[in-house]
C-alpha cells in the first residue's frame, strides 16, 4: 500500500476530505460574515447561533412535523433569513448611527439568548439526525472510499459559495452592493432603496448560516452548543482572510479546513490550535489579512 511520510495514502486522503468538509462550513459561515460586515459594518456575533438554529430547526422539522431533509434544505434557510429580517428591522437598524460596537454587542446578546433558550429546551446531549436515503453509503473512488453525504456537502457548499461570489462580483445587483459598501448615501441618491438592500444583505448572510446548519445536521452532533464551538474558528478564518473580502473568506475557509485536516494526520495534538497559530502569523505579517485591503 502506498504511503506518504509513513502515513497510508487512504488515511491521508480521508483526513484531507474531512478537512475539506470542515473547510466548506468555515467558508459558508465566513462568507456570510463577510457580506454582512461589508454592508452593515458590524461583526455578526449571532452567526454561530443562527447556524445552530439551522441545524436544530432541521431536527425539529423532522421530529415534530415530519418534514424531511430536502424540504428543510429549502425552508430552514428561509426561516432563518426571515428571523434575520426581523432582527435587522426591529433592532440592528436603530444602531447604524452609533458606534459599530453596539451592533457587535447586540448580536452577541442575541447569540447568548438564543443559545440559552435552546439549551434550556433541548439540553446539550445532542440530537440525532440520520443521513438522507439518497446519500447513505459511500463512493468507491478506487484509491479511497468517499462517504456520499460528504461529497454532497462539498458540492452544495462550493456551489453556494460560487453563486454568492458571482452575484456580488459579476452582476449589477452586486455592483450596487459593492458601491453601497463604499458610500451608501450616494448609492441611494441614484434611486436605489439602500435600506431595503441592507435588510436583504443581512437576511442572505444569516440565511447562509442557516443553510450551513441544515447541511451540518446529518453530519455532526446537533446541539445548542455547536455554533459556539465552530464560530470561534470561523472568526479566526475571517481575520486570516481579511474582513469583508468575499473571495478571501471562501479561499481561506477551504484552505484552513485542509490545513487542519493535514495537521490531524501529521501532528494531531496541534490540530485544534493550528488555525490560531496561522492567525497570529498572518497578523504579524499582514494585519489586514491575506485578502484584506489596508485602510
Amino acid at each position, binding site marked *: 500500500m502506498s504511503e506518504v511520510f509513513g502515513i497510508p495514502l487512504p488515511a491521508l486522503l480521508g483526513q484531507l476530505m474531512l478537512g475539506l468538509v470542515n473547510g466548506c462550513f468555515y467558508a459558508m459561515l465566513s462568507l456570510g460574515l463577510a457580506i454582512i460586515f461589508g454592508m452593515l459594518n458590524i461583526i455578526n456575533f449571532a452567526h454561530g447561533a443562527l447556524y445552530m438554529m439551522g441545524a436544530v430547526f432541521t431536527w425539529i422539522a423532522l421530529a415534530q412535523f415530519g418534514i424531511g431533509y430536502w424540504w428543510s434544505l429549502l425552508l430552514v434557510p428561509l426561516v432563518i433569513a426571515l428571523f434575520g429580517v426581523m432582527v435587522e428591522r426591529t433592532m440592528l437598524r436603530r444602531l447604524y448611527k452609533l458606534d459599530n460596537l453596539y451592533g457587535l454587542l447586540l448580536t452577541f446578546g442575541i447569540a447568548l439568548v438564543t443559545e440559552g433558550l435552546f439549551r434550556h429546551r433541548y439540553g446539550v446531549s445532542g440530537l440525532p439526525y440520520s443521513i438522507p436515503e439518497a446519500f447513505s453509503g459511500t463512493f468507491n473512488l478506487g484509491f479511497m472510499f468517499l462517504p456520499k453525504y460528504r461529497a454532497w456537502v462539498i458540492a452544495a457548499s462550493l456551489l453556494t459559495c460560487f453563486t454568492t461570489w458571482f452575484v456580488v462580483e459579476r452582476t449589477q445587483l452586486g455592483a450596487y452592493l459593492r*458601491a453601497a459598501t*463604499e*458610500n451608501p*448615501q450616494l*448609492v*441611494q441618491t441614484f*434611486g*436605489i432603496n*439602500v435600506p431595503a438592500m441592507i435588510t436583504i444583505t443581512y437576511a442572505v448572510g444569516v440565511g447562509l448560516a442557516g443553510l450551513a446548519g441544515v447541511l451540518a445536521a446529518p453530519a455532526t452532533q446537533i446541539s445548542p452548543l455547536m455554533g459556539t464551538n465552530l464560530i470561534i474558528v470561523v472568526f479566526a478564518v475571517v481575520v486570516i482572510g481579511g474582513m469583508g473580502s468575499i473571495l478571501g473568506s471562501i479561499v481561506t475557509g477551504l484552505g484552513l479546513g485542509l490545513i487542519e485536516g493535514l495537521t490531524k494526520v501529521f501532528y494531531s495534538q496541534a490540530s485544534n490550535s493550528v488555525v490560531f497559530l496561522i492567525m497570529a502569523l498572518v497578523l504579524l505579517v499582514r494585519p489586514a489579512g491575506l485578502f484584506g485591503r489596508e485602510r
Partner: protein
Amino acid sequence: MSESTALEYLRVTDLHAFYGESHILHGIDFTVYRGELVTLLGRNGAGRTTTLKSILGLVGRRNGSIMVNGREVIQWPTHRIARLGVGYCPEERGIFSSLTTEENLTLPPRLTSEGMSLDEIYSMFPNLKERRRSQGTRLSGGEQQMLAMARILHTGARLLLLDEISEGLAPVIVQKLSEVILRLKDRGFTIVLVEQNFRFASTLADRMYVVERGRIAAEVRKDEINEKQQLLEELLGI
C-alpha cells in the same frame, strides 16, 4: 424666459436643516424653473452643500417644504426623490474605487427613458472612453469630475444638482465644463449649480442666489449683474 408662465421645477420654501444639534439652514427660499440654470453662491460654510443635500434628504433632519415637479417631497426617503429624475453630483465627486470607470458610469439605474446613451456621453467626454477600463479613482481630478457628471446624465435625470464642479480644476478643464453645461442647457436640463468660482458661475447662470449663514441673502438675475455688482462683492468678498 418669462417667469410668470414658466413651470416651477423646484421650489424650496422655509427650509431648515440640522446636523445633530447644529441648526445649519435657517429658512432657505428659492425657486428654479424648468430649463433654467440657477447658481447658489456664497462663502465657505454658508450652507450651499447642505441645501443640496437637504433637497435629497441627506441631512440629519430637515423641515419646511421642497416641491419637485409639483410634488411635496420633504417627507420622502432619498431614493424616492431621486426617482423623480433628480441627479446629484456631490462636492467630493463620489467615484467608487471598487468599480471601473465604465462601471461607475453605468452603475446608477435609468430613471427615465431620456438618459444619454454611452456613445453620446463618450463623444461629450472622450477622455472617459479612453480610460473606461481603469479603476474609477485612478482618473485625474478633472476626469473624475467629468465621470461624476456623466454618471447622472446617463440616468435620464432632468434636474441636476451640481456641487462645486469647477473646484480645484485647471482653467482649460473649467472651460471644458462650461461648454458641457451650455450643451446641457440647450438640451433642456434644469440645473442648480453650487459655485465658489464667480466668473464661471456668472457666465452660465440665468439667476444667482447668494447664501449666507443658512439663509438666502440676495437674488440676482443675469441682467442685473452689473447694477448689483457692489452688493455681490460685499456678500461674496470678491
